[in-house]
């Protein structure tokens, strides 16, 4: 059980590099080997939950509507990039990149739930599954005879995770939700965006965060319940995740301030309400003056972090504003909103003739933490993420050479992995129906002809 001698003698950095080596992922066991899940989900919230578990090795079966598949396949940024084919029946159509990242390692089958055969197939799948992720309107699956109440009779060990916008009960139970609706009504917008003084409006998080992160919370809950089932109780479970609830969980601290002191938190742009100096400042020069890409022609931005007294003194020294060091000697003084306006303006004045890299390098000389704002190309090409396996070129069996995000965390002994990014609509109909539902080739052909699959 002890760690081998050669690993003990390495530097810590080499040790980490060895045990977390992403190239060795496939030499290590999968956490969820032999576990099976069903994902009857659309958009991002439900699919991503199932995908995180599929990355850990669960055989996850994604059920989509026949023909066009789920709506997210038809979304892509500015209508540009698509991966072809959408399905063997529609090779001239593609799947948009909105679908990417939320469906790793899954098997793709199609079912039209309005047909009785489809309900039968769902029951056969549920009988053999460990978890199920579902995000139809609350009560729909129950009405169709494949909700938790019915499936738990077929399989009492089934862990059933329902996910949705507002949840299945309460005044807003019939409301549909999307990611940014969750962000808007949950309160996330209200504290994000440039300050009113700079003409800023409440802003959205660029990512579908309430969906993708909500999926992660749900995946955690499923894992915890599988642990409870297998080690303690032997029982399945029914869980509900409401997307808007996630927003309140995120903002728990400002909710506490509202509850006791009646404070309504506002947006504070690129600065920080708890620490100063700890903010993102504009650096006047572009890092790529010769580039033709407008994203690279922009001026740069950089975080400067110097909130401890001695770091702040070094910062004032760096920007040659000793008056500011004298004026705001203590952290409490610097945190005052008016002080923040003065200090950050002085830093931006100093940074006006520098690129973000130059600012970061000078901060480094003064022992300050700085982090340039990186665009997606800079992140993609940063060797750090590829060495750690966070971003990886995947040799996808269907779509070829694609660049994908993997895992989101590192594990030394049973790491997550990405074997394929997704597959065309219905690509595994034959395999799954034969393997798990006992259908023969001609029966499968009949189901297809009758548009059940």
């Amino acid at each position: 059980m002890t760690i081998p001698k050669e690993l003990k003698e390495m530097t810590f950095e080499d040790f980490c590099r060895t045990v977390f080596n992403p190239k060795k992922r496939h030499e290590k066991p999968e956490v969820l080997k032999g576990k099976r899940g069903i994902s009857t989900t659309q958009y991002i919230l439900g699919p991503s939950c199932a995908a995180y578990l599929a990355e850990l090795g669960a055989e996850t079966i994604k059920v989509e509507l026949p023909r066009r598949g789920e709506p997210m396949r038809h979304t892509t940024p500015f209508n540009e990039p698509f991966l072809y084919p959408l399905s063997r029946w529609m090779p001239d159509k593609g799947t948009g990149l909105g679908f990417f990242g939320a469906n790793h390692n899954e098997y793709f089958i199609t079912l039209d739930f309005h047909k009785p055969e489809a309900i039968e197939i769902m029951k056969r799948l549920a009988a053999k599954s460990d978890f199920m992720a579902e995000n139809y309107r609350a009560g729909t699956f129950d009405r169709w005879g494949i909700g938790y109440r019915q499936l738990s009779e077929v399989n009492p060990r089934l862990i059933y995770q329902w996910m949705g916008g507002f949840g299945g009960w309460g005044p807003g139970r019939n409301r549909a939700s999307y990611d940014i609706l969750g962000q808007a009504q949950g309160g996330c917008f209200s504290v994000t965006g440039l300050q009113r003084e700079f003409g800023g409006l409440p802003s959205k998080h660029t990512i579908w965060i309430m969906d993708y992160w909500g999926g992660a919370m749900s995946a955690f809950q499923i894992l915890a319940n599988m642990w409870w089932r297998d080690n303690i109780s032997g029982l399945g479970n029914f869980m509900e995740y409401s997307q808007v609830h996630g927003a309140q969980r995120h903002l728990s601290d400002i909710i506490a301030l509202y509850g006791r002191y009646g404070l309504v938190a506002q947006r504070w742009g690129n600065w920080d309400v708890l620490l100063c100096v700890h903010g993102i400042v504009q650096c006047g020069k572009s890092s790529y003056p010769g580039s033709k890409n407008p994203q690279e022609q922009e001026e740069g931005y950089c975080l400067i972090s110097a909130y401890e007294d001695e770091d702040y003194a070094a910062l004032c020294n760096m920007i040659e504003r000793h008056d500011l060091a004298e004026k705001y000697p203590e952290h409490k003084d610097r945190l005052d909103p008016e002080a923040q306006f003065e200090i950050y303006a002085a830093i931006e004045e100093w940074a006006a003739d520098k690129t973000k890299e130059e600012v970061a390098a000078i901060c480094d000389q003064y022992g300050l933490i700085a982090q340039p704002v990186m665009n997606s190309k800079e992140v993609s090409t940063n060797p750090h993420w590829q060495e750690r396996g966070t971003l990886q070129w995947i040799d996808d069996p269907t779509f070829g050479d694609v660049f994908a995000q993997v895992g989101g965390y590192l594990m030394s002994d049973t790491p997550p992995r990405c074997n394929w990014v997704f597959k065309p609509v219905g690509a595994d109909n034959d395999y799954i129906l034969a393997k798990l539902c006992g259908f023969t080739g001609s029966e499968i052909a009949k189901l297809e002809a009758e548009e059940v699959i």
Partner: protein
Amino acid sequence: MSEKKKPKIKVLDWPAVPTPTPDEVYAGVSDEAKAYNLWLESVLRQEFNANKPEALQGIRVLDVTQKAIIGHWCSSLFAELGAEVIMVEPPGGDPLRKLTPFGREEYMFADKETGEKVGARFLAECRNKLSITLNLETEEGREILRKLAKHADVLIENYPPGQFDEWGIGYRQLSEINPRLVYCWVGQKGQWGPDKDKPWALDPVAQNACGFTHGTGAPKQMGGRPVRSGWWMCDQVGGTFAAIGIMAALYARDSFYGKGQFVEGTGAEGVIRILDYNWAWYGMDGSIRPRYGNWDLAINIYAVNPCADGQIMVGGGHDRLWYRIWRTVGKEKPELEDHIVEDPKLRVVTDRLPHHMQVKTYTCLVEWMREHTRYECETALQEEEVASGGVAFIDEVCEFPHYKYRGHLEVIDDTLYGKVLIGSSVFIGYRTPGRVKWIGRPTGYDNEDVYRRLLGFTRYDLEKYKKLGVI
């Protein structure tokens, strides 16, 4: 701000407006139509939580993190599901305890016993946790941590990369003492690799490093600049992924593997995992995802835009909803509806995505919305079954009838801190719901309990270590 300038706010008890009752919520709904909703209420309502078991009963977590929220967030998820989480803080407490917005001490929370003030940011992630103090800069302190590690299933730390290893309390050493230990390091960019963390780098380092900030905010052409999230978002997302890694390691340990392992979770990598299509898009043709403000690159209509009393989100990515939205607008401004539906450039869903088509769409939509409040827009759109919702500020969030009814917010009536309103556990479930039992503990409040119970300390040991500055 001086005391003089400080506004006097009369704070009403929460909820200021009573929470709706079930009778009000389901008034006029047929028995059949509400049967499933009522079944959900009967199995999911949080008022039944105390009758139910906790999923992670028997798991013990040492949260040896400080200054940042990522580790505390991560351990909160375990605490909500019933694990015993012990925060191991430096003597004097985690510096994060002292942080409060704009340094305003008057907005901190003091406990009844010690009077020590703690900021809301820290208190919100103290839920169900115990607090002990331990000075890891002393060899005695480290020796105590080694002993504690024998009793733990999980240890989470966020010290500078390699610091614990150097101190002899890293994964390599603790896994010898307790091979079943799941050891997790959390941080911003990583404890190893060419761009690894500098000591005590804090969010938004991760937000900048992962491409999030570049993509958030309005485009430059529209007068915007990159914007960070309003809170330490990467910490909270990265902490969630770290929790998945730890939970997976526990599951592996107890189902087939028999031993713990080394887990690493970072704010940047959690968000890289969920940054949509950024990487795939770059990989295909070298595209750099631009900022797009409150609109969406991949869906039209799916955006937040201003209206008479704030901003409102309207969503309708496919044809059915598209025409319903314009029908709603057309009831009042038929010219606008005609102007959109007659435009041959906007006939096909995908043709509506290019930027200038989005400009046309949203300008026309706002031409209707500018005269209406969020509530009026929402009501009108609701008639056509279109999803929409106003941008809500935190007072509106806290008073939102749906959230109050479902217990998204709850008042924890804490023995030490009094009544504190918080965002409750999102782990709603039939058999093993998450729950918040107490809001937090003052620094070192559980020293005596934990050190006696786990390490058999006597009052003399406790006194000695306290005197030496070890605990």
